[in-house]
């Protein structure tokens, strides 16, 4: 057991830290960036991805040929720690980089990798996901959108929803039912679809905060050539799921988000301790609990990363991760709002929430998206504890 990073990792950390200090958009040098969920903000975030790409920092764990540095999982964790520490902008490219790219690496043809990875790394092409449908949420296998065989490709029809970043994205990846006679997890195919394809329309959906963070996407006979099928036809479910347990596809939710937030909460609590000690005393237990949980998540991530690096397959533990980070995120932000009191619920002059309220609204979605926590608890009970399926 050794919890130290090695000298090279520490040098990498120093580089990232210095670069971010010099480059993160801040007041007085083009920042903070406007909201990701506006046309202007989306482009500003895209430009930031390009800036990182030019420093070879947008996808450090990818091979060099696709714009990365060929670094490992641990270096990626170092990068993330520094990224959150610097309070750098939300990654507009994250759906592509964290959800699609691992699948491309495992199932993509060389031509697909060359075509899609570099512009994903540079922010030139931003991806959104097309998993859920109005009647296929928790029950993802209930997908009904169809793919019908045509000359040289497929014709897609149907509707996807809750497509994060869907309002402004360039491409969509998603599952469609290619074999109408197959049921549930069978007969699905994984497609890559440009958002400007004829027949495709987007309807942005406003979220709790009033911003259009996600969208519905309608497919009316959208033609997609064979080169835009990822993996085997009719095997889309396996393709989509396979990378969940691999090292690259671990999609470890970056622990830095929570340790950073818990640290800021702790600072706020210290300040409250001076201003209103009895109120601070009431919140002490919850604040400390949030700090402990954020640290537990960080350490558990190293624990899991070590296993992944040793070649172990990470399976249902990703469900445990999901439950833990979403509960931790919510606890941190609920405690913060309680600590800050009613003033933290006031919107600014443009009707936008402050940092903590914004973080709370975001955290509220955690137990819902990427598989509700109810689904995740089923998975943990069945695959880790061996309880029978219902």
């Amino acid at each position, binding site marked *: 057991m050794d919890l130290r990073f090695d000298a090279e990792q520490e040098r990498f950390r120093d580089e990232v830290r210095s670069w971010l200090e010099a480059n993160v958009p801040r007041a007085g040098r083009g920042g903070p960036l406007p909201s990701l969920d506006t046309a202007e903000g989306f482009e500003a975030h895209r430009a930031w991805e390009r800036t990182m790409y030019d420093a070879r920092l947008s996808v450090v764990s990818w091979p060099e040929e696709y714009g990365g540095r060929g670094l490992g999982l641990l270096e990626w964790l170092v990068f993330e720690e520094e990224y959150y520490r610097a309070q750098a902008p939300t990654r507009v490219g994250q759906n592509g980089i964290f959800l699609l790219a691992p699948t491309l690496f495992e199932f993509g043809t060389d031509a697909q990798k060359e075509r899609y990875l570099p512009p994903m790394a540079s922010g030139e092409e931003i991806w959104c996901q097309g998993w*859920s449908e109005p*009647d296929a*949420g*928790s*029950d993802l296998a*209930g997908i009904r959108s169809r793919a019908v065989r045509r000359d040289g490709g497929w014709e897609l029809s149907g509707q996807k*929803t*809750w497509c994060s970043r869907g309002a402004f994205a360039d491409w969509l990846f998603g599952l469609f039912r290619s074999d109408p006679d197959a049921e549930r997890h069978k007969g699905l195919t994984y497609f890559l679809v440009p958002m400007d394809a004829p027949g495709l329309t987007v309807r942005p*959906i*406003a*979220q*709790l905060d*009033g911003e259009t963070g996600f969208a519905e996407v309608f497919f009316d006979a959208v033609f997609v050539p064979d080169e835009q099928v990822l993996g085997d036809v009719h095997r889309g479910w396996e393709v989509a799921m396979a990378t969940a347990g691999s090292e690259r596809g671990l999609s470890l939710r970056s622990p830095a988000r929570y340790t950073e937030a818990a640290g800021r909460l702790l600072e706020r609590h210290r300040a409250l301790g001076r201003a209103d000690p*009895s*109120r601070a005393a*009431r*919140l002490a237990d919850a604040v400390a609990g949030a700090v402990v949980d954020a640290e537990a998540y960080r350490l558990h991530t190293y624990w899991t990363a070590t296993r992944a690096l040793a070649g172990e397959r990470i399976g249902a533990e990703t469900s445990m991760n999901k439950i833990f980070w979403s509960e931790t995120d919510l606890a941190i932000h609920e405690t913060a*709002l*309680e600590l800050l*009191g*009613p*003033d933290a*619920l*006031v*919107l600014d002059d443009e*009707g936008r*929430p402050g940092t903590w*309220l914004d973080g709370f609204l975001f955290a*509220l*979605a955690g*137990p*819902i*998206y990427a598989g*509700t*926590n*109810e689904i995740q*608890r089923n998975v943990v009970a069945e695959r880790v504890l061996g309880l029978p399926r219902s």
Partner: protein
Amino acid sequence: MRFAFDEQQLQFRAQLRSFAEKECPPDAIRTAWEQAPGWSRDRWAHLAELGVTAVTVPESHGGLGLGFVDLVLLLEEAGYSGLPEPLLDVLAVAVPLLAQAEGTAAEGLLRDRVLRAVAEGGAVVGVVDPASPSVVTAGAELVLVPFGDEIRAVDVPDGAARHRLVDGTWRAAAPSAPAGVVVAEGARARQLLAAAADHGALGAAAVLVGAATRMLVMAADYARQRVQFGKPIGSFQAVKHHLAGALVRVEFAKPLVYRAAWSLDEGDPDAALHCAMAKAAASDAARRAARAALQVHGAIGYTWEHDLHLWMKRAWVLAGAWGDAGHHRATVLARA
């Protein structure tokens, strides 16, 4: 011992429900959010016609002279219906404060004029929630504000800065150098402010249990209708237990609210303790109901278009207004 509302009280609530169903559907709430003061003067006038604005105004000033027991049932209904009008600030806090003030001669005249105007729907008198002392009720012509060891009734200038809260209610900046009429001073002012804090907490608790009930009703409706894995999601134990667990907390908060109202009306020396208990329980129950309802709705509940957030955000704001659960639990320990 008869712990129940009487027929008249229940009828009054039913009238308010019918009114709200017609005059305040969710789209009307959305419209009200859009701009200050966050509520409708038209609807306020209609509420006055129903007698709602006159509930706590003494009969001697043209009101109905009813008490907190009558009021909390109406506030619970306002929470259930999502009415954005400032019934809590005006009827639970400002009117009782003004009615019991004994200030200067000028105040005597003002008191009668203002209370009559409130009863008739012609005026809105606002207050300051000590949990956010820099702002006052938005849209009030007159606000009652603490100043030094006095309470003053101050006109609100038209151009006062106004802020929107996450739940669509607005608040106006508190007048900084109030030049109004002195409503009370010294020990009497302190007494009235302490009572106002209890009234605000109790009123907020009543609105919260109403809003919480509404969210659970919405979630149950959705769970009956939404099908996943071939059956309504409401048939899954996880969904059942989320909602049942929250419902139990809400249903057991309600008697605390009703009892506190009764204690205030009876002048019970423990009334402040009872208000604190009510607010502590109602704040937590409503927050839990909001969480459960959102989780059951899933992504659709996270959208602006769906109605759930109108109630959920109200619950967040009111859970912290007039003292949060922790504040009131500290009061319980100090007074029990």
